[in-house]
């Protein structure tokens, strides 16, 4: 949708990717590792890790990736739609040692599919595989779930720098495919970019359980 709108002549794709996931699953570490190749580093130059960009070149085509971090606290859950509207991809992160965070991912998937349909490419990411010993979410369960909702599943570790590069690259390729399909189906596909922009409302469709408010980040 919005991606194809930018430039059809030069084949530069601009993609917006949102990062969703509970507070302490390591969203920030993941993007910092990807964009700066640093982990828990004192020398991180960027002032913030909430909006990062990356330029890629995939099979001769330029891709501009804008990665939008979202606030993961439960109380900001209802704001999700404002963040993920018009995004081409979503990365849903959970912590393999935390069963709850996987449940959150399931909620997100349900919501995203409901609001955005199949236009959005979903990645479900089990982070912190360096803590394999403490795993609480089984590999089979996670992968089966991902397949059932048309998402891809990845295992990553920001600490060991495992699986991150591959995950982003894969996501980009899929987003390019989606954009190309859309382009073809719409002829030129440019003029409709602005129509989906408006009228997104926040809907509290499901009354959330008030119990999970604390999490591991409540002290922060």
């Amino acid at each position, binding site marked *: 949708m919005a991606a194809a709108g930018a430039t059809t002549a030069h084949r530069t794709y601009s993609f*917006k990717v949102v990062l969703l996931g509970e507070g302490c699953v390591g*969203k*920030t570490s993941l993007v910092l590792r990807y964009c700066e190749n640093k982990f828990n580093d004192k020398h991180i130059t960027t*002032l*913030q890790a909430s909006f990062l960009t990356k330029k890629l070149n995939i099979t001769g085509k330029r891709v501009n990736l*804008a990665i*939008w971090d979202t606030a993961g606290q439960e109380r900001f859950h209802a704001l999700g739609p404002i963040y993920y509207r*018009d995004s081409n991809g979503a990365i849903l992160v959970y912590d393999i040692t935390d069963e709850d965070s996987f449940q959150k991912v399931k909620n997100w998937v349900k919501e995203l599919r409901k609001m955005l349909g199949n236009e959005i490419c979903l990645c479900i990411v089990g982070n912190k595989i360096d803590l394999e010993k403490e795993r609480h979410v089984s590999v089979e369960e996670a992968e089966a779930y991902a397949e059932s909702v048309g998402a891809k599943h990845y295992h990553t570790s920001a600490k060991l720098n495992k699986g991150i590069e591959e995950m982003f690259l894969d996501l980009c390729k899929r987003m390019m495919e989606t954009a190309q399909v859309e382009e073809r189906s719409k002829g030129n596909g*440019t003029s409709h970019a602005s129509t989906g922009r408006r009228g997104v409302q926040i809907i509290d469709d499901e009354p959330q359980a008030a119990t999970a408010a604390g999490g591991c980040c409540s002290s*922060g």
Partner: protein
Amino acid sequence: MSQRSERRGIHVDQSELLCKKGCGYYGNAAWQGLCSKCWREEYQRARQKQIQEDWELAEKLQREEDAAYASSHGSQPQPSLTPFSKFEEKKTNEKTRKVTTVKKFFSPSSRSTTKKEKERNEERERERERERGEKVQGRRESHGEMLLRDLKGIFTHSWEIGSPTEESHEAKSHSPSFVRQSSVETDQVAREFVDFLKSLKPGREIHKQSRAFVESMGNKKDLGADELSECVQDFYQHMSDRLLTHFKGSSEKVERVMDQVEKYIMTRLYKSVFCPETTDDEKKDLTTQHRIRALHWVTIQMLCVPVDEEIPEAADSVVKAITDVIEMDSKRVPRDKLACITSCSKHIFNAIKVTKKEPASADDFLPTLIYIVLKANPPRLQSNIQYITRFCNPSRLMSGEDGYYFTNLCCAVAFIEKLDAHSLNLSVEDFERHMCGGGDGGGSGDVSPRRRSESSSPWPLELLSALQERQQQVLEEARDLQDELQLWQEGVAREVQNILDKYPLEIKRHAAHTIDSENEENDRLPPPLQPQVFAG
């Protein structure tokens, strides 16, 4: 010495130098022969009269226009969506606007330049003071550290602290200086736009199209906000497509041109499309403003904001962020408004970085932004957000960094609107109690600490008592200062009196002397010439 030079100077009759009103002070030619005091009075009176006349004239014009409108559109009903009260409000705004423009035409040209300049400066000064006052208020609410530093501010603006700020916002947004500046601003933007386009090959075409578009928009004033937005967005789309395909511009270059196009057309359209009458933006503004004011008790701890305002640099960044988000309202171009939000966000990131020593994630950023919005209570927040959504270049809004921060601001506002006990980790009773007690801003200062201690929320009581002590101290010191000033004044008066007592006669003697009495050579001079009449 002094006497001799006096004699040599040009002799002007004493009476001509005095104020024409005869108050005994010296007058000045620049003030039409009046003294400063009389001139000010005279000028004020003339100005009052002028304003009065202009009002009457404007009202007459308005009545005529209304009558004409009623006769031509008699059958057409008013849009039922807009409540009557709001319509009234709009109308008064409209009226004031008209008054100022009418005034502009009727003021005598000889005055118009210098005096207008002066007026404008005064207006600006007043605005700045008002803002300063607000800022002082904000800081005082946020933490008492600044209290001592702002001693001066508190003394000069104490009356403002107690008073509601909404009126001042209203006044500010429709102040005459604002309207008057606009024409200068649009001219300047138009000139800059032309200058910018000179370097481009398709510049002439771009200019022609943009101008034609602005003119065509002038005829579409009756359209709803969404239709207007659609028109502008279509124009952006059309223009950038054309630049890309017909003129083979690179995407960066096209973006640069589009920025200028946006600046040009939105500066010109701003007045007619910002917070248009067809929407209820204004009502939403007021609702949000009241909501934020009612939430004045929300603390940094309740929101889990990772900023420690005890650190001077962090506190400084917070103040800067507040200033930036308030400043957004003063910009006309959507992109400039976005730039204010971005700058505000950067300051927030800095505050977080100083506190946490690591780059801020969205988990840190959003609560802090919410806190800043609550502290700042930016004027016309909803109108500004709507305006940016409707008229900003979409490519910037959807994927760029500015777009990200803008989205976060939207989130912050949405959060504030829906905020409840659960989102602050409070019990429902506590929340209700805070909201009920939150009505008056003045009295809550000494009530809330007690209430908070009752509800055993983690509010630092020591900090509060320390603050109270400090405030007491400040007040005492202020009183001392006042006493000292009084003493000093009395001392000076006494001294002056002493000196006056010491040398009263001499002054009299000098005054009594005539110039000639000292001059002994006078006798030897020939008698003064007498005018003689010659017959024929």
